[in-house]
């Protein structure tokens, strides 16, 4: 039978492995868009991410 200490260590390892497996790529949480001439400036907010892409919604600055 496993000791309490070993059980906790195993639990920590299992959780760490799970987190490592589901870790996603880095995406900036927010950025501002370009503005030229009549172009409107937007602020884009990160709304989702994956290993494959960063997903943003952009809102016209107030």
């Amino acid at each position, binding site marked *: *039978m*496993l*000791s*309490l200490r070993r*059980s*906790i260590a*195993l*639990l920590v390892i*299992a*959780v760490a*492995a*799970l987190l490592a*497996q*589901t870790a996603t*790529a*880095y*995406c*900036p949480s927010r*950025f*501002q*868009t*370009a*503005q*030229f*001439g*009549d*172009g*409107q*400036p*937007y602020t*884009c907010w990160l*709304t989702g991410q*994956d*290993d*494959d*892409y*960063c*997903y*943003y*919604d*952009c809102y016209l600055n107030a």
Partner: protein
Amino acid sequence: MTWNRTTSLTALVVFTAAAGFFATGLIAHKRTEAVGVEGASVGLVSTTRRPLPDYQMIGDDMQEVPADSLRHGRVLLVYLTTSCDPCVQEAGVISRLYRDAPPDLSVYGVGIEKPAQLKTFVKQFDLKFPVLVDVGLQLARAIDIHHFPSKYLVEDGVITKEWRGKTRDEAALRRQLGLQ
């Protein structure tokens, strides 16, 4: 057997590990299924033909790109944001593809951030392809881009293919672009 605290913790460890591996296995399975056009969330997601909407683009020389220059021939537009890991990885793929691209295929990165940020991005990651700025997100909003990177193949002014997310299979992308 006595059902004591240690046994409970052991059961918890086994359950957590099993649930975790089961859940991540399901995610991996779902992602594998997502490749392809039908109901895809990454990779080639659309082959629906639609006209390229009006746009206002500025080149790296800060000069406005002529209104119809992206409507002639075959043009690959690659939307990127700076500092986004999948975009950085995609930029490497597109640099290789640009190097090997035939004369009838034009390749452009498209950014929506400030030109100074884009210039730093181009220099930092040694991008080999030209990068334009989509002013005021005019085109990005017209074709409803939310995912970065995203790619669009424009053929004589008509969007014929759309890819979402970074390229996982470069050979498949080349085939889809008719390069092999």
